């Protein structure tokens, strides 16, 4: 029962996210999902604990919901920004000459797309034609520089 409740909450979150993506909101896709997923998660925790208490089924339901939400966010951000996912979707139109792939999927356009997103989300700023990294962007850069070192990516 608790597991079914978690699955139902997740399906509802995905359906409402689809609707939110069609609404004129000034929010990116992840924030739109959080707007729906977090309150639903809080409701699930409340109902689970009230109904099942801090038992195995109650905690399992909460964790299952959290996993499904994380997986969903991972998948839709992948679909929106991954090079491989975009290539696969593009190839649905038919085979492409390997040499023509670069022109069909323009790397410069990809840089522009990411740059626009960074500007929109406040990681990079542009003033009088010059780009600069904001405090938020610097923080992110510091964190990932540390992570690169931790995972050993820098010594490769």
């Amino acid at each position, binding site marked *: 029962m608790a597991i079914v409740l978690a699955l139902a909450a997740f399906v509802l979150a995905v359906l409402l996210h689809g609707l939110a993506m069609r609404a004129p909101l000034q929010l990116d896709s992840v924030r739109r999902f959080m707007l729906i997923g977090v309150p639903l998660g809080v409701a699930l925790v409340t109902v689970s604990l009230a109904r099942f208490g801090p038992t195995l089924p109650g905690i*399992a339901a909460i*964790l299952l919901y959290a996993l499904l939400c*994380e997986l969903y966010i991972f998948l839709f951000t992948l679909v929106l920004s991954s090079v491989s996912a975009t290539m696969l979707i593009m*190839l649905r139109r038919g*085979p492409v000459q390997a040499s023509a*792939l670069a022109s069909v999927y323009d790397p410069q356009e990809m*840089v522009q797309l990411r740059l626009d997103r960074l500007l929109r989300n406040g990681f*990079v700023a542009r003033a009088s034609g010059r780009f600069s990294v904001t405090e938020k962007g610097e923080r992110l850069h510091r964190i*990932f520089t540390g992570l690169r070192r931790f*995972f050993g990516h820098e010594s490769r």
Partner: protein
Amino acid sequence: MLLAIAVYLTAHFAAYVFVLRHRAELRSENGISMYHFASAVFAGLAGVVFAVLEPNRFGLSGLVLVLSLHGIYSLSFLELWSLAQGGYSLSIIASVAQAEASGTEPDFLALAAIGEAKQDDRVAALVRLGLVSGKDGRIALTARGGRIAFLLHALRRWVQPGEARKG
């Protein structure tokens, strides 16, 4: 039960932090994925055994709990690992920061070249995974690739309705 799986995942993470992260095999995408996949299979099998032996105290809920906790841990870890390895947006931030420090313009053309190299790598990876095939210089979806592309396109249509007709 929650404590047992928490201890197991802590040990898995500690083994990586203190011993395994320095090994070359775990610095590759395949290596790190296998490290987590093998652990998830092990935890899942242990969960199945417990669910069968203790259907009332553990049961399906216990199995779901084990897999969910492992899933959250592994997915978070692998996402961070992958982002730290070569996030494109992070490369752009680094390029802007570098240019800012040296008083020059960011070299976005160099970043586009990285994108181009990345594109070649990705095609090779998709061929290895059996999702696309290259014949006579043409790249096409395989049957499996077609199914995956269908699902990806459906998800893109769901979350980006304005871009839906492009795929």
